[in-house]
């Protein structure tokens, strides 16, 4: 699995012309048609868990130890993004839909741009 993004970690883009936001990043604004008016913005750091699963059989790459939780989170005033969810203990019992999560950005050198944690 080799593909990364042309944009910085844990960002989405917002249109200078009309204010619409897009994730993952793109160059054209779908809402107003403007080109090259989209600026990188940090993803919001908090949101609510929309859908989730616990993966027990993983791909060769990324080589994650199983089981691990992954889910879509609706970021506050932001997009719905998929990310790995770090939990203490058994992820099957630690998560529930609607739960508040925190988005934690990773170092630019890391293959994975961010992860999610259960909010304190």
């Amino acid at each position, binding site marked *: 699995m080799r593909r990364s993004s042309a944009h910085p970690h844990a960002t989405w883009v917002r249109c200078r012309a009309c204010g619409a936001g897009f994730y993952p990043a793109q160059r054209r604004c779908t809402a107003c048609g403007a080109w090259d008016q989209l600026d990188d913005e940090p993803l919001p750091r908090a949101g609510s868990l929309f*859908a*989730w699963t616990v993966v027990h059989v993983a*791909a*060769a790459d990324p080589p994650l130890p199983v089981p691990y939780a992954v889910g879509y989170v609706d970021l506050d005033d932001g997009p719905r993004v998929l990310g790995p969810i770090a939990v203490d203990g058994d992820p099957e019992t630690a998560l529930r839909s609607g739960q508040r999560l925190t988005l934690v950005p990773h170092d630019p050198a890391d293959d*994975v741009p961010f992860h999610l944690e259960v909010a304190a």
Partner: protein
Amino acid sequence: MSATSERTVAIRGVGTTTFGRQPGETDRSLAERAVQLALADADLDPAAIDAAWIGNVTGGQLGGQMSALGQLALRPFGVGGLPVTRLENGCASGSVAVRSAYLAVATGQADVALAFGAEHMTAAPTPLAIEVLAGASDLEAEARFGITFPGVFGMIARRHMEVHGTTPEQLAAVTVKNRANGARNPIAQFDQAVTVDDVLGARRIASPLGLLDCCAISDGAAAVIVVAEHLARPGDPRIAASAQTSSDFEPFGEMTGFALTRRAAEEAYAQAGISADDVDLAEVHDCFTIAEILHTEDLGFCEKGAGGPFVEEGQTARDGLVAVNPSGGLGARGHPVGATGCAQVAEAVLQLRGDAGERQVDGARVALTHTLGAFVHGAAANCALHVLVAA
């Protein structure tokens, strides 16, 4: 967009290899066998083929044959010179190959067009196959975070349970039905019946889905020979509709169904001049148990949210209101991904000709095939749908 054909299009022959783990074969050797079977079924000389499309997804990464798979598989038939195209549209590749053949014949570009599909996936270590298949999601925003295809449908299953009250037993009913159908299909990967308890007790793959909620990695090939009306024989089924849609990247919504399936069905029913009630049997993309439940809703066989009770009550059994996956579907027949669309159409043809043996759906006159490919941003990326009618 209307795709009403200029010419009536029929299917004159089909062929499907055995599906399942076949260590001595390759995608190329399986494709060669499927074409042989389809030509024999059609009683046509290979020289009659005007153009060909082959569906293949993982061959480049798992087998290494990046290009020319179709040309190489057809070489033994001595039909060099014709246009041959390899087609990759995720797990819908074989269906889009059928659609390409259909369009070529409908528009008069070909009188005989071959659609085939082949995949050999079991030689690779399973984690590698899972990685390659996860490449059918958005690598930037999805796959690199560790989501797998079972994981995607695990999330959808949990959503459907939360929103519509679907139960694990209802998911299991899909596998029980499809394995029972597969037990009557000589080419099926799985020919053993299973119980609801077997499905519920299987080891977890991606919660809430277990091993028996998931189709398996598979090897196989299938071929379909599409002809203009003047080359059809009495009894050859006709293609009454062909529709293809992509994700429109609308917001995820409830993530409990696929808008692109609903749009493709609406278009196909209009082309064929039928409604969902007219469909006698449907081969649908049950890559996971929850998927079949969504499709029965999105294709209009039951109301949105009612797909769980619909299968549990036997309405999708071979003798039910609409027979769904009488072949056993992806779950039991198997899912060598590029071959699946052609295998679905092959099953529809056998059913409409009355040639489906022990799994024959009584009085089958109208058949639907539905295939999805890839998954991006909460929705499938491709959908291809065909309606076939008996002669």
